[in-house]
């Protein structure tokens, strides 16, 4: 069974992986897209923008209001 500490360590590793990917993308000088580029690409279509904005709205309501 996975304990609380292990869960936090795995969350930290996943966060580090995201940051690592972003650094690699920044150092690749455009060969690999960054997270911002990915979001821009997805939201360039109405359906993508709608889904992302709804997810953002849910996140804010869930985290700060309810």
């Amino acid at each position, binding site marked *: 069974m996975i304990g*609380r500490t292990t*869960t936090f360590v795995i969350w930290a590793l996943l966060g580090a992986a*995201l940051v690592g990917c972003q650094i690699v993308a920044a150092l690749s000088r455009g060969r690999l897209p960054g997270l911002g580029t990915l*979001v821009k690409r997805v939201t360039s279509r109405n359906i993508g*923008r709608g889904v992302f904005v709804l997810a953002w709205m849910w996140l804010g309501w869930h985290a700060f209001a309810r």
Partner: protein
Amino acid sequence: MERPSGIALRHGVTVAVSTAGLGYALIASSTRPFTVAADIVTAVPLAVALVLTIRTMRHRRWSYAVASARGETDRPPWSRRWTVWLAPIVAIGAWELYCFVSVPRVQHPTLSVLIDSLDSSRIGKTVAFASWLSLGWFLVAR
């Protein structure tokens, strides 16, 4: 008097919006969840984002129709270089799901629990709210 250039104007707007967002986040950090004040302070950016998104989507649909009539709607296809983000995003989703279905929650904190921990202090909530606002600005103001 000389008119500001496009870059200077954009820089000015960014500074003004950032300052306003930080001030708003500071106000929001004084509220507590499950109160009317928290509902109102969270609902205002949601309403603004909703209006801006609907306006942009309607404008885009019109632009797309015009471009479509001219045969200019082709977009570059997705390439393999985008898959660099697939592994971390799928891993985070899978881990969140695992934590969500596992009990007790105290042993398996989800992202919501991590955010709640951040929100427990005034400065943490200010940072979290300001980050959420800037993410929203990034999504709707283009």
